[in-house]
């Protein structure tokens, strides 16, 4: 049986960061359902935050101010000690990335360039034009080639195997060979990303099914704050491809069909650079009031930036607009609408990225520590992946070095793999029933219509019913094609099980949380209620049912205040 000291699942930024810092004496591997460079981190555009103070307008910046902005942006749901930890490490993290070869854009004098981003008191977002995710992912991949990190590409984890509160390894489906097998591991780090495809409109890659989060949940690990779903204000109308916040950071305006910069009605001081939850709701409100175009979108106007600046700072955005919308932003405004973008919630882990299951860690978007609370600031997710990916790798290394290898755990792994094989056989032997893409389409519509940006009890309750109906239908799922090699249908069937769980946990958390905080907006409870709800939601699977409990937020320095921008 394949056996690893540390098995990192996911080859995006958090996964590669974890692998790179893991103790080189240990047998470490990265396992990913796609080649690491195809991970969704590659699509990050606008930048990564750190209080370098390189921008002339950011001279007075400090990591403490970065931490405060993060906490305020989170609508005070972030654990303050964790937000501080991340922001304190941000500066050295950027210089380390720069040292490894990340080609950041520069200011005169040769220092790393920084642009303004939403919800930030100072311009502190470091960038490489608008391809920051691409260059950081490629750089960490380059480093893992240098370090000869072992990769298992195009392997999908189907199950996390846990015995007596200890992680034993995983079961995987190898796409190229079409086979299921167990992988033993003394420590497993999930860096499996988000679940954007649970929603109809999302900026996320087609592969972002979020199954990693669902698999941890199935293994009995609580999910935290899952009701907090970030909708990005500016996705390209129709395809919902991300149009970076950097476009507004560089000076782009949002305008409605009356030609008005409507943000003045919603955040008169920060305007377009208010946090994402506020800007996204403002756009959606304008559209619903009839101030949009075709009742679907508003305009993001970059023309005032001029051709030179657009080509220099936002070349990727220009390329996307030309390729996918037939619009050159130099000449025309960009039609945009909000779309699901990021999960603030995730697998419940502590500051060491460790979960309640010994030997199981999580980092990046799939994890919730919690840094981003009820709303993440732009530019903080790349930072999160690298800072906490490293912490996960270091902590897992320490734990493995300090523990003994278990001897008699192979049987359970083999049994679990056999169980998966049997399940696949069952799906294969049926020649009629439900098709997975149809179920997914139904689920997406429910999530977008009823568990979207504006929520209420009636819709959320209805969504719970509908999800449960789809869960019943999922029992009749079958594989229509007989070849199991490179079977995307099988991948989708396996991952859909997780998507159902995620949809349920998101909806349940949203239904219970009778207040409005950050991204979670309840039309029937429009105010933040710190007395009753300044707490993290935990949902744990017990006896096949989700159980809800709550956990206090760490408030160290900053007393919750009303957010104004």
């Amino acid at each position, binding site marked *: 049986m394949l056996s690893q000291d540390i098995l990192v699942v996911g080859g995006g930024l958090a996964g590669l960061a974890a692998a790179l810092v893991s103790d080189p004496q240990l047998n470490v591997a990265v396992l990913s359902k796609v080649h690491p*460079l*195809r991970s969704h981190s590659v699509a990050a555009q606008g930048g990564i935050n750190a209080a370098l103070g390189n921008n002339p307008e950011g001279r007075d910046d400090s990591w403490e101010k970065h931490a405060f902005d993060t906490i305020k942006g989170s609508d005070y749901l972030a654990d303050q000690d964790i937000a501080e930890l991340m922001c304190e490490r941000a500066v050295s993290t950027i210089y380390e990335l720069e040292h490894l070869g990340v080609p950041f854009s520069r200011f005169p004098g040769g220092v790393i360039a920084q642009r303004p981003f939403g919800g930030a008191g100072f311009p502190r977002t470091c960038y490489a034009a608008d391809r920051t995710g691409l260059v950081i992912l*490629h750089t960490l991949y380059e480093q893992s080639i240098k370090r000869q990190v072992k990769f298992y590409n195009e392997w999908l984890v189907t199950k996390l195997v846990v015995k007596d509160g200890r992680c034993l390894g995983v079961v995987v489906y190898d796409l190229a060979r079409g086979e299921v097998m167990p992988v033993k591991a003394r420590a497993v780090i999930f860096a499996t990303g988000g679940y954007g495809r649970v929603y109809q409109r999302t900026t996320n890659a087609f592969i972002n099914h979020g199954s990693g989060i669902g698999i941890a949940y199935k293994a009995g690990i609580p999910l935290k704050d899952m009701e907090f779903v970030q909708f990005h204000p500016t996705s390209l109308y129709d395809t919902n491809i991300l149009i970076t916040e950097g476009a507004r950071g560089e000076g782009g305006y949002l305008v409605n069909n009356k030609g008005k910069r409507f943000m003045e009605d919603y955040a008169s001081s920060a305007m377009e650079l208010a946090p994402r939850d506020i800007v996204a709701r403002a756009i959606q409100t304008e559209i619903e009031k009839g101030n949009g175009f075709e009742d679907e979108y508003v305009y993001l106007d970059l023309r005032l930036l001029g051709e030179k600046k657009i080509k220099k700072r936002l070349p990727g955005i220009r390329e996307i607009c030309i390729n996918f919308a037939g619009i050159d932003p130099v000449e025309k405004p960009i039609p945009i609408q909000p779309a699901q973008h990021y999960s603030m919630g995730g697998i419940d882990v502590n500051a060491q990225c460790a979960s309640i299951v010994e030997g199981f860690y999580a980092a990046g978007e799939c994890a919730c520590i919690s840094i981003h609370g009820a709303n993440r600031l732009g530019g903080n997710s790349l930072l999160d992946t690298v800072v906490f990916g490293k912490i996960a790798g270091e902590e897992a290394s320490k734990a493995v070095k300090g523990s003994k290898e278990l001897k008699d755990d192979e049987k359970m792994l083999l049994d679990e793999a056999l169980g998966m094989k049997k399940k696949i056989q069952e799906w294969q032997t049926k020649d009629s029933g439900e098709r997975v893409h149809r179920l997914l389409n139904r689920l997406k519509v429910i999530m977008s219509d009823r568990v979207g940006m504006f929520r209420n009890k009636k819709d959320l309750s209805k969504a719970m019913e509908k999800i449960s109906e789809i869960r019943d239908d999922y029992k009749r799922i079958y594989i229509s094609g007989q070849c199991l090699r490179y079977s995307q249908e099988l991948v989708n069937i396996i991952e859909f099980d997780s998507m159902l769980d995620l949809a349920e946990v998101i909806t349940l958390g949203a239904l219970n949380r009778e207040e409005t905080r950050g991204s979670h907006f309840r039309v029937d409870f429009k105010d933040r209620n710190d007395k009753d709800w300044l707490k993290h939601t935990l949902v744990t699977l017990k006896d096949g049912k989700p159980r809800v409990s709550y956990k206090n937020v760490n408030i160290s320095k900053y007393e919750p205040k009303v957010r104004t921008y």
Partner: protein
Amino acid sequence: MEYIFRILRYDPLKDERPSFQDYSFRTEEKMSVLEALMDIRNEQDSTLSFRYSCREAICGSCGMVINGKFDLACRAMVDSLKAPVIVIEPLPNLEIQKDLAVNMEPFFDAVHKIEPYVFSKKQVLEKGHRIEDKEMDKIFQYINCVLCGCCYSACPVVSRDEKYLGPAALAKLYRFIQDPRDERPFSNWSRVNTEGGVWGCDTVFKCNEVCPKEVRPADGIEALRRKLVVEKIKRIFRFKR
């Protein structure tokens, strides 16, 4: 509008040779070839295999040949092909694993061979390197590369000489040499001073033509050649002195 998608199918474990299979496909919407393929897979034939991820031409998964043109399937729009029959083939020069999914390993091996990372002896600098933006601009063209493999597949030299590193790897090497932070010794990069390296290029510029990200890898190969020659001459003169 009604289309015929003529897709090259091949399962090396079952089929003697690749063959085309036709699928009729109807759409009135503006959609990408990738979305059409997904629809065909969902509604007509779930055994159809192909890779994809980001759907926005940044991850490099879905390189293929569409009506004779190398492209990422996610950025090729069905209607803009302006043809009732759309022929889709996997990337050539690479072994087919299944249908449109090819074995990318030889391509990545070539990239890895040039040691694609910044060589640096220094510790992390407290305030980072000072590099002017115009220095970074020199490599920006090359860092657009998403390693999709289109150039490698289209390269006539790769198809006849499997030892040839190919356009993406050589252009990437140039990206590192041009990086002011890179302290790679001449002995390292002069290893491409061979037929399997920069002198293998036929200068037919197929790579520049097919690159979906406008990297123009051949610019890098040509620049490497010039740099090699200059370095050689410099070394001769230094030796004489």
